[in-house]
């Protein structure tokens, strides 16, 4: 195909056009430059600056000293909290999302049901952020519909408004799990559905002719085939929760998880008496993301064998 494209101008060239053509061919490279420049300035440079800033002290001298911020107990706790919220929401989100995918099996991909589910999932998974936080303030916040219903029913100090003696559940880190699930489950539906659709009807028939039950079909055929895609999606969910900022920021005003800690570190320079903490935290996040995404890539390659 490459050669066809390369030789094409010669085949179609009429005599008079030759000079313009050759000039155009050498100029074609220039066409890639604007996008390249844009990506370098607004993607490569910020990414490198974010991570590199962790290696400089307040006077701009290169140092590894800032990295000790990663051993600071306050910061370690926030990393652990981030891991906790991400793990819980990834596991619950993956299981619930997979069950919804299962329910959607056999529906028409172009049908109204699937179009509505897909669109609703995209909205919640990708753009919900702040709005989702508001919805849960209205549902389980201090004045929320569910909280108030429980109070009027006589349960004045219920787990929603009195969680761990710290007040409203929604404004604490463990409370993030509930709104986070509302973007995790839809993301699971979006990423896991293609794998579910890769299950071929003939495999079920083969299982039946060999005397298998639906139980053996699931345990011996479908689950082993879906396992790499399932765990791949689970990792993606973990990464998604780990890097999400907007929902948490709309609910919790101080730190608590790493994205919030980055915001704190950028607004007040010395959180724990170390320069450029934001850069160190950014580095920590990138390391976690690289590990997660490498694992995701491996599982995805394994899963792709069945998706054709």
């Amino acid at each position, binding site marked *: 195909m490459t050669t066809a494209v390369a030789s094409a101008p010669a085949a179609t060239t009429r005599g008079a056009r030759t000079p313009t053509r050759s000039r155009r061919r050498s100029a074609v490279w220039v066409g890639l430059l604007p996008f390249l420049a844009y990506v370098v300035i607004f993607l490569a440079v910020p990414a490198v*600056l974010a991570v590199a800033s962790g290696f400089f002290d307040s006077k701009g001298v290169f140092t590894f000293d800032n990295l000790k911020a990663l051993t600071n107990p306050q910061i370690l706790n926030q990393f652990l909290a981030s891991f906790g919220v991400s793990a819980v929401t990834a596991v619950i989100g993956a299981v619930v999302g997979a069950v919804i995918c*299962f329910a959607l099996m056999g529906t028409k991909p172009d049908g109204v049901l699937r179009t509505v589910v*897909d*669109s609703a999932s995209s*909205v919640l998974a990708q753009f919900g952020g702040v709005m989702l936080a508001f*919805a849960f303030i209205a549902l389980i916040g201090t004045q929320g*519909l569910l909280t108030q219903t429980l109070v009027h029913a006589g349960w004045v100090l219920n787990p929603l408004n009195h969680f761990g003696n710290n007040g409203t559940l929604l404004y604490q880190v463990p409370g993030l799990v509930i709104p986070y699930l509302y973007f995790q489950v839809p993301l699971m539906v979006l990423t896991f559905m293609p794998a579910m659709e890769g299950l071929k009807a003939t495999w079920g028939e083969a299982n039946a002719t060999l005397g298998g039950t639906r139980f053996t079909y699931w345990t011996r055929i479908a689950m082993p085939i879906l396992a790499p895609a399932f765990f791949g999606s689970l990792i993606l969910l973990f990464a998604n929760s780990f890097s999400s900022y907007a929902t948490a920021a709309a609910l919790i005003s101080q730190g608590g998880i790493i994205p919030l800690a980055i915001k704190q570190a950028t607004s007040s320079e010395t959180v724990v008496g170390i320069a450029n903490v934001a850069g160190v935290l950014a580095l920590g996040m990138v390391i976690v993301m690289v590990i997660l995404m490498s694992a995701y890539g491996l599982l995805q390659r394994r899963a792709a064998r069945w998706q054709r």
Partner: protein
Amino acid sequence: MSATRPLRFGAEPSGVTRAVILIVAAILFITPIVALIEFSLRVGQPLKGVQTYGPLHYLAIFNPASSGAYQELFQGIGNSLIICVITIVIVLVLLLPTMLLVELRFPKLRRVLEFICIVPITIPTVVLVVGFVPVYSAVVGIFGSAPWTLAFAVGVIVLPYAYRPIAANMAALDLAVLSEAALSLGASWGSVLSRVILPNLRRGIFASSFITIAVVLGEYTIATFLSRNVFQTALVQLQRTDPFVGAIFAVFALLFGFILLLIIGRIGSVGRNRKAS
């Protein structure tokens, strides 16, 4: 018996199982939205456990006396719309021509371009913004600090979303053959572009423009870190002083995003039907 209920071999659930799962999921997912709407209709504090409802907060938005309170929000919406337009321009003027060029002239670079466009998903936005802060101190020097300059940063976040629909559309066509056919019939590159390539890509282009709008309107992280006023940041501010009106706008924003994506879904499935027939 098997005449009324066909035997099932594969993964498909029974009708009852499907209905139960989907109805439970629908109820769980609609409840917070219902609570949001309920919240926006509340009038005053509940008296003896009885809450009164009315369109009070909806009317307040249009009340000229209270318009001052919502000025920042409307300004934020205005800024977000301007950023939308510029981000779409970035997609159409920077990304689209590059994708065409790579497809037609440098097919070997296709994987590289794809990789570049996926990277912003891998790097958390909250990490990128740490780097955007110093980059924007340079940007402010050149373009000033007007809110529209955020479009440069948002354009990067949009890349993965905008890339996919156009790439999927391109994969379904053989642009090289189409353009060579047009060229050999005597068309200039200009008419190849305007009469062959772009009309064939309009579904992908529409889908990525719509999804760009949805991403820009939902963008919060970049704007807070760079302290600019956009729809989402204004919404968070307003939520602190007037949570009811915040709820109203949140409902409408979610609904608007849903409709945008529904349209994208329809555009996509129309294309699939045509290909199948």
